[in-house]
Structures are given as C-alpha cells and as structure tokens.
C-alpha cells in the first residue's frame, strides 16, 4: 500500500512537470489551430463580427457570427 501511494506521488509529480514544460507549446498549438479556424470562419461571416470557440463535445470549432444588432448565428467547422 505504501509503495503504491509513493508510486502515485511520483507519477503525479512527473506528469505535472511535463505539463508545466509543455504548457507554452500547447498554448501555441491552440492559438495556431484557432487562427486556422478563424480564417475558415472568415468567408462565412461576410461583414459580421466573428470568432471561433473550441467545441469540446464535438471536438471541432464553432464559428460564431454577430451582426451590428447583436443577432448571432453559428456554424461548425472541422478540427483541421
């Protein structure tokens, strides 16, 4: 039991270290993927304001378009 809890602590520390080191690069990957999705949302939006949101359930991007009155429409874009 004692060795199992020690193993879990070691594993947690190692995973946390990896996440800290990888954090900035994951952030960059998210930004790059988001910018790609934004570029694909652009032609759909016309002259409306638009932005993308990551849709965790569908594992894709939601393209949200807003006109000057605040009315919004949305469309889903593939991940890549």
């Amino acid at each position, binding site marked *: 039991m004692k060795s*199992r809890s020690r*193993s879990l602590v*070691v*594993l947690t520390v*190692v*995973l946390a*270290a*990896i996440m800290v*080191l990888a*954090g*900035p*690069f*994951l*952030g*960059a990957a*998210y*930004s*790059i993927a*988001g*910018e*790609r999705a*934004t*570029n*694909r*949302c*652009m*032609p*759909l*939006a*016309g*002259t*409306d*304001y*638009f*932005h*993308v949101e990551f849709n965790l359930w569908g594992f894709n991007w939601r*393209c949200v*378009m*807003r006109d*000057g*009155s*605040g*009315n*919004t*429409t*949305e*469309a*889903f*874009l*593939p991940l*890549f």
Partner: protein
Amino acid sequence: MRNKYLPILGAAALLCGSILSSASATEQDQEFKTLSPMSVSQFESEIASKASDITLIELVVQVPGQLDSQTFGSLGTGLTLDSVVKESLITLADMKSSVSDESTKTSIADLDRYSKIEAKLRTKSFKVGSAEGKSKSKLWDTTTVNGRPEKVKTSSTASAKSTPVALAASAVPCGIWRPNFHANIAASSTYPGQRYDQLKFAFTQGQLDAFACTGSTGFEPDLVTDNYDTFHYFGDSIVSFSSTMPYSYLDTNFMDAPEERVYTVGTYNIAAASPWTEYTSYVRTPLGNADSDRAKVVWQRNSERVPGCSLVLGAAWCLFSDESKTEYAWKFPLPGTYLAP
C-alpha cells in the same frame, strides 16, 4: 510486480530523455530571442559579436511629436545592424514616396517626421527592440526558443461545408472596438524587385474604451489578399516591416490558408495606443506571380489564453483571436491607393 511499475518507468524515461536531449542541444546552435530593448552598443557587444546567425532584428526609433516611436524590422539570414538600417531606410523611402498618393492633412507632418527618423537611422540613434537567431553559446538576457516550424500546405477552406444556424439575439457587448480605416497604399518599392503595402487607421476614444471593455489585449490589422485564383501581387515571405503602433510584432502566417494570404503587423498591448492618432502598418515582400490583385482588411482583437506562452515563444505564436471584423472586402486594389469613403 513488473507491470505495476511500467507506467512510472515510462514517464521517468520520457523526462530523462527530454533532459538529455536539451543538454545535448548546448553542443549545437541554440535559437535565441532577446527579451528587452537594448542600446546599439549593448547589442553589438552582447548579441552581434556572439551570434552565429541573426534572422530578425527590430529597431525602435524615438521621435518626439505626434507619435513617439516607430518600429522597423527585417527578416533574413546573417543580419547585421547595418543591413537592417539599410532596409529601414528603404521602408522610409517607400513611406515618403507614398505620401503624395494619399490626400490627408497629416502629409506635411509625416514628411517632417520621416526626415527626423531618417537622421536617427543614419546616425544609429535608436534602440534595438528585439533580435532572434542562433548562437553557439548562451547570450546575455536571452531566452531559448525552439524555433518556428516550416510553413506547411493546408487544405482548401472552400471545402468546409456548414449551414449557419440562427441563435437567440443577444445584446451588443461593449460597442464598436475596431478602428476607423483611413487608407491602404500598395505599390512597387523604391528597392527594385520588391513591393510594399501600408495600412493606415485610427481609433477614437470610444473605440479604445470598447476595446478595453472586451478584455482583449492585442490587436491585429490583417491585410488579406485574394489568392483564390492562385495569382498574388505580393510574395510569400516578408522581407521588412514597420509599425507606428506601440509594442508591435510581426504575425506569423504559419498554417494560414493559401487562398487568403494574410500580412499583419500587430500590437500585443493595445492599451498603450492613443486615440485620434493615425497608425501605420507596413510590410514589404518580393514580387508575387501577378502584377495586380485585390485585398481586404480584417480587424482582429486577441489575447493570450495560456499565461506565459508569449514569454517563451513570442506574441505571434500565442495570441488567440477573440473576435474579428472584415471590411472593404476585395475593394483594395493592388497596386493602388484606396481611401476611406
């Protein structure tokens, strides 16, 4: 017993492997990016003399007046301060030549300002805002970055099939945050074999207040050119850039769709911008494969979603678009001058 410890051993091996590979990197050229502005003498003694290859240098020229400073940047290989000063003088010459194309009341003030900037460039009376490149040793006040991946081909954006779905109306949040467009000027550079574009715009106080209300910290005025027909006026790579916005950066076009080519010099701190001030962003590229084209502007507000990312990799890689707005779709003639209607 053996199976119980396998995941832990695997994770430990991963960590050791990354430590060993980063240690071995010290034997090769390490990429560097300087963190803070420095004087010319500091740059020459601490960076230039030790770098094996400098690929980006940004100069910040301070001129008291309507705008306090202007950033000039150049990309390439084996850059030196003299080569970047030469590129910056070409940029300035392009800006001076385009003043007569633009009928704005600020043109006389612009010419005076350009003369002062030229004098500062020639006498190296400026700061080096940042530099990137490679070095065999760790340089003063630098951080190591892993470099930028090569641009990859992307699939056509026209293949994305989506049917817009109407949602419930919501109140307009914050108001209009995008600036007022003034002019877009595209022409052949005073340097043969290159072309430039200048995008000019200004914020009202209300627009800056709306921007602050949104919570976004960065702003990008994207010049987007039409490449659906595969013909483009501008070349793929940016040779030189300039901006009169504070805290400016050259955005990466990594993984951008080839159908709409984007050229952007943004700012990661829009809060430092002043109202009623005409800002200019300038890019210069080699020739494209056509002598005419068309473009539009997309205003974008953005922010850093993962704290600390830009400290390691730089703003261009870490700012996420919060919202964008397209204007004057395909109305900018390339070459040509398009003034705000």
